[in-house]
């Protein structure tokens, strides 16, 4: 097997390891649209990364955080719904990204790669970044698991229980931004949220506890990456969309599993 293919496999699996558990929180906290908005910052992040000569993944991460920060601040004014705010910011930042990229001759060639991912060009630096991120994300999640879960269940109860709710919320945004920054390398900015959400959604019916769901979500992500990559090799189809299609197929199949989680109730 070619080296580039092994690196692609490694990178994809690493991204799936980070996206699996974070995806569960995105689904539980209904942050899917929020994630999509963050992903729209990818292009501007990459362009600024080139201009300032910063590693693109880090620049994207910083840009996502910046956008998340803007959203948190804007949420405090109450005249516009969060939904509308996300729509405004996401597209404004995406348009800005497209304009900046248009000025940069060298980048324009790679535009498709950033929109749809270019997993076959994953290099050693990318691998380090991806696995480093996966390690940080999973240890942070394990460390803050209880607090995060309390936040998911009910924010007010969490406050009274002594959970530092605001900090935990920011932590989750931070982790999501990190996952998007490494995931976009694999499936591109237009599909990165799919890598986060679809495995988690598919995992729901396989799990009776939050932990089982996080593990199942990760496993589904890994299976999707491996199957998608081999499919792309076999039938010569684009790798990112192939991965997302496999995950989607698993999701559809999961709909036929009866929901787990406790005994059935006869009333």
């Amino acid at each position, binding site marked *: 097997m070619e080296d580039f293919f092994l690196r692609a496999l490694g990178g994809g699996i690493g991204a799936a390891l980070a996206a699996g558990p974070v995806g569960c929180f995105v*689904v*539980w906290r209904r942050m899917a649209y929020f994630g999509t908005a963050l992903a729209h910052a990818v292009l501007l992040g990459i362009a600024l990364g080139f201009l300032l000569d910063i590693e693109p993944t880090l620049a994207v991460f910083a840009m996502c955080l910046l956008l998340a920060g803007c959203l948190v601040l804007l949420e405090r004014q*109450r005249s516009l719904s969060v939904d509308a705010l996300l729509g405004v910011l996401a597209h404004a930042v995406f348009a800005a990204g497209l304009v900046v990229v248009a000025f940069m001759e060298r980048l324009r060639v790679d535009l498709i790669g950033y929109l749809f991912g270019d997993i076959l060009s994953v290099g050693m630096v990318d691998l380090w970044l991806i696995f480093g991120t996966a390690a940080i994300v999973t240890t942070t999640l394990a460390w803050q698991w*209880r607090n995060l*879960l*309390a936040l*998911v*269940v*009910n*924010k*007010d*109860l969490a*406050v*009274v*229980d002594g959970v530092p709710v605001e900090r935990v919320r920011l932590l989750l945004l931070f982790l999501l931004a990190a996952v998007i920054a490494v995931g976009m390398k694999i499936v591109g900015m237009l599909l990165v949220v799919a890598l986060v959400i679809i495995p988690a959604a598919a995992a*729901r019916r396989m*799990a*009776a*506890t*939050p932990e*089982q*769901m996080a593990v199942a979500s990760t496993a589904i992500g890994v299976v999707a990456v491996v199957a998608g990559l081999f499919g792309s090799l076999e039938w010569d189809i684009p790798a990112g969309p192939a991965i997302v299609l496999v995950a989607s197929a698993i999701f559809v199949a999961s709909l036929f599993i009866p*929901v*787990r*989680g*406790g*005994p059935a*109730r006869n009333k």
Partner: protein
Amino acid sequence: MTPTPSGDAEQPMPLVEAQGVSVSFGRRNVLDAVDLKVRAGEIVTLVGLNGAGKSTLIRAILGIIRPDLGKIVRAPGLRIGYSPQHVHRDPILPMTVQRFLTLGAPAPREKLEAMLDEVGADAILDYPLAEISGGEMQRVLLARALLREPGLLVLDEPLAGVDVTSQSDLYRLIATIRDRYGCGVLLVSHDLHLVMAATDTVVCLNRHVCCTGQPQMVLRDPEFISLFGPHLSDTLAIYRHLHDHRHDALGEPLSIGSGASEGSHTSGQHP
């Protein structure tokens, strides 16, 4: 940060005290200079119409929102058990009742079973949280609050979704809990009948504190009467009367309510 015992010295120090708390959302003033105290062993009930700011006051006292003016003083080391008015349960989160109960404070299964039994819920520990009924959820929330062994129990509409026949049981349970653990209880309720029967202090809220005091005093307060209407005030006075023998404590010379309660006294039976 010690709360100052205001006034009478024999009263125990308040567990929690709101001092001149004002909250506004945008241009809407929801609470205006509200004072409230809850002492150990005391059941304080907030009454008021929709939009009177009851839940907002509770949330300020719990530290969920910050008051724009005024402050909340808590006794040092106070542990609070809270049962919110509504907890959204999303089936996307796989979680059993047992897991939900132990998120706030870890406890062995036997203790959880005993607690569910105490609040009158069935053995539903292994059921998904999203699948239990609204009334069961209220009991689970109460159990969760009690599991924290609180010094102060804060219950926002604990009767929502509970059948009418079980409501008085739940009220009796709250009084029993207060007696057994000696905790303070801060309650929000719409059900004035039961409130009047099981409360030490009523605080009638309409963005500001309209009136406050023992239930039978509040019933005769002109502000309470104008807020809830003379009819309701009369009905409650009768109800209260049947359960309270200290008639002479009602010596307030307020014309509207007293006539009716006198009438009920002569014709009514004492339990």
